[in-house]
C-alpha cells in the first residue's frame, strides 16, 4: 500500500510541474492560437540564470534562502523580458501570417535559445545546489521532501492566482476579451498588443519559477531539459483542454499520475514485456484516446474565434 501511496506522490509532484509549465502554453494558445515551443526553453533559462546568480553569491555568506530569493529576483524579470522579447521579435511580425509561419518560428526560437545557453553556460550537466530542503519526510510509509511539497502547493497557488487574475481584474477581462475575439476587443478599446505581451510576461515568469523548482527537485540543470518538459507540458495542456487554465492544471496532474503509475506498474502488469522505458508512450496513448473521444480535451478548449 505504501508503494501505491509513494507512486501517487511521485505522480502528483511530477504533475504539478507539468501543470505549472502547461499554464504558459495554454494562455498563449488561448489568445494567439500559437504553440509557443520556446516556452520550455524559457523554463530552462530560468533555471540556468538562477544557478548563475547562486554561483556568484556563493562566497557571500548569505543564508541559502536569501540567495534563492535574490537569484529568483534576477531570473524572473529576466525570463519575463525574454518572453516579451520573443513575442515582439519573433511572433508579432507574423500576427497575420498563415498559422504555419509562427509555428516554425517558435521551433526556431527554441533551438536558438538552447544554443545560446550552450554558448554561455556550456553543454554539461550542471549540479544544482540544495536551495530548498530536500531531506524527505515520512508520511504513512511514503517519502516526500519539503521541496516537493513546495512544488505542489505553489502550483496550486499559482493556478488559483491566475484564475483570480483572469476573472476578477481589468487585465483579466481584457485577456478574456482578446481570447474570445481580438478584432472586436480592439474595437472595444482593449490594447491587444499590451494584453498579448502581458500574457507572455506572466507565462514566462511562472516558467522561470517552474524551472528552478524542477532543477532543485532533480538537482540537475541541462541545456536540453526544457525540450521534453515543454512537450509533455503542452500535451498536458491539450489533455485538459487547450486555452483552459483549469484544464492545464487537471491535464498536468493527470499526466503526471499516468506516467508515475504507468512506469511503476506496467512492468509487473505485462510480465516484463513492456518496461518502464515506455513511460512516455503511456502519456501519449492517453492523449490520443482522450482526443478521439473528447476532441476538445477533458475540460473543453477555449480558443480565439478567428473569423
Amino acid at each position, binding site marked *: 500500500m505504501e*508503494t501505491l501511496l*509513494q*507512486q501517487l506522490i*511521485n*505522480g502528483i*509532484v*511530477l504533475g504539478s510541474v507539468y501543470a505549472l509549465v502547461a499554464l504558459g502554453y495554454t494562455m498563449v494558445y488561448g489568445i494567439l492560437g500559437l504553440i509557443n515551443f520556446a516556452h520550455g526553453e524559457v523554463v530552462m533559462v530560468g533555471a540556468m540564470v538562477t544557478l548563475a546568480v547562486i554561483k556568484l553569491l556563493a562566497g557571500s555568506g548569505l543564508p541559502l534562502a536569501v540567495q534563492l530569493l535574490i537569484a529568483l529576483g534576477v531570473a524572473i524579470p529576466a525570463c519575463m523580458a525574454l518572453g516579451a522579447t520573443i513575442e515582439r521579435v519573433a511572433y508579432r511580425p507574423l500576427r497575420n501570417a498563415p498559422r504555419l509561419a509562427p509555428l516554425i518560428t517558435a521551433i526556431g526560437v527554441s533551438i536558438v535559445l538552447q544554443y545560446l545557453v*550552450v554558448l554561455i553556460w*556550456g*553543454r*554539461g*550537466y550542471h*549540479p544544482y545546489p540544495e536551495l530548498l530542503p*530536500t531531506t*524527505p519526510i*515520512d508520511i504513512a510509509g511514503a*517519502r516526500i*521532501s519539503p521541496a516537493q511539497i513546495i512544488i505542489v502547493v505553489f502550483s496550486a497557488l499559482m493556478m488559483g492566482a491566475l484564475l483570480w487574475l483572469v476573472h476578477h481584474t481589468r487585465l483579466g477581462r481584457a485577456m478574456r476579451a482578446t481570447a474570445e475575439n481580438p478584432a472586436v476587443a480592439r474595437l472595444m478599446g482593449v490594447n491587444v498588443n499590451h494584453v498579448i505581451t502581458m500574457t507572455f510576461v506572466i507565462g514566462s515568469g511562472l516558467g522561470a519559477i517552474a524551472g528552478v523548482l524542477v532543477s532543485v527537485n*532533480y*538537482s*540537475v540543470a*541541462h541545456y*536540453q531539459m526544457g525540450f*521534453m518538459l515543454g512537450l509533455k507540458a503542452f500535451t498536458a495542456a491539450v489533455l485538459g483542454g487547450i486555452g483552459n487554465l483549469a484544464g492545464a492544471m487537471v491535464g498536468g496532474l493527470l499526466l503526471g499520475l499516468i*506516467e*508515475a*503509475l*504507468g*512506469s*511503476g*506498474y506496467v*512492468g*509487473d502488469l505485462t510480465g*516484463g514485456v513492456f*518496461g*518502464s*522505458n515506455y*513511460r*512516455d508512450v503511456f502519456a501519449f496513448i492517453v492523449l490520443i484516446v482522450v482526443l478521439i473521444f473528447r476532441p476538445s480535451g477533458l475540460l473543453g478548449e477555449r480558443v480565439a474565434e478567428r473569423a
Partner: protein
Amino acid sequence: MVAHIPEPPSMKQRSSFLLFSTALALIVAGCGKQEAASTGGDTIKIGLAAPLTGTQPHIGLDIKNGTQLGIEELNAQGLEIGGKKVKFELMAEDDEANPAKATTVAQKLVDAKVVAVVGHFNSGCSIPASKVYAEAGIPQISPGSTGVRYTQQGYATTFRVVANDDQQGPAGAAYAINTLKVKNVAIIDDSTAYGQGLAGAFEKSVQAAGVNVLAHEHTTDKDYDFAAILTSIKDKKPDLIFFGGIDTQAGPMLKQIKALDLKTHLMGGDGIQTPALLAQAGDAAEGTVASIPGLPKDKMPGGTVFLNKFKKRFGVEVELFAPMGYDAVFVLAEAMKKANSTEPAKVLAELKKVQFNGVTGPIAFDDKGDLKNGPITINVVKGGKWVPVETINGGATPAPAK
C-alpha cells in the same frame, strides 16, 4: 528644410541582399575549410569521434583532450615515416552520443581521408559507425566502447583499448557475490547498446550463480526522473541495484534512491565511474560501486605522469577515458612506424600485430580487435572519492561462489 531621409530598402532589395550575403558567407566558409586541407602534404589526419555535445559532453571532451595531448606529443617527437617527416592533425567530430549522427560523422571522416579514427565512445555509436569505417578500410580504435557486439561483426577494422562487457559484467557480478554477498538484485538499464549490454552481462552472471533478479527496469538515456521505477523496486527489497548507464543519470538516480530511503547501494560500470558523478550526487554517492575496464588512473603504468601532464595542459582533471584516447594515438603511431607507411591498409595489417606499452598498460589486440588481457578494476566511493578496491586481470574471470 526637410532632410532627405533615405528610403528603407524595398522588400525585393532586402531579399536579394540577404541572398547575396548568405551566398558570400557560405563561399567564404567553404574556402576556409579547403585551405586547411591543402596545406602540408605530409599532414596525417587522425579522426576523433566522441560525444562533444548531448548527454555526455564531459566524457567526449575528456577523450578529445587526451587524444589531442597524444597528437601534440607525437608532433613534438618529429616522427619520420616512409622517409618523410610527418605531422599529425586531429579532426574532431561530434557524434552527440546519437547513433544516427555517428554514421554521418563516420562518413564525414572517411570522406576527409583520415588515416585512422579514435572513436566512438558510446557502444551505440561505435557499432553503426564501424560499418562505414570497415567499408573504407580505415582502422577504428575505440577508447571506451565496451559493448561486445562492436568487435563481433566480422570487420577487420574494429579495435578497442578497453576490456569489453563480457568481461566487465562477470567481474562486477563476482564482486557483488563474493564481497558484497548479495542474494537478490534489481537491475536498471538505459536502453542503449552499452547499458543494456552491460546490464545483460551482469544479469546472466548473477543468475548463473543463483542470485535472484527481482526486477529488470528500463529507462532512456535522457530521463532523470526515476522515482516511479525506484519506488517499484523499493517494494521488492533488493540487496543491490545495478545500473547499466552513464553518470549523468546515475547522479540524479543516487539522489532519488536516498530520498526514497532505499537502503541499497548502486553498482554500475565504467559509465558511472567519473568525478562528475561525485559532483552530481554529493554524499548520496557514498558506497556506490563501479567496475572499469583498465587499471585505476594512478596505478596505470604511466598514470601519475599522464594525470599531471593532462592537468597542466588543460587545467582540468582527467575524467576517465583520456588515457585511452592518448594510448590509441600512440598505438596508431607505433603501427605506422612498423609499417613504415601511413596508408590505412598497411597500418591496419601492423595494428593487428602491434605490441605497445601505453599509459594504460600493455596493449595488444586479439584476432577480433579486443584488448588482450584487459584488466578490470572495481572502485567504491569512500569518503567522497572513488577508491579502487580490487583488480581482476583480464581473460580470467573468477568463478562466482555458489
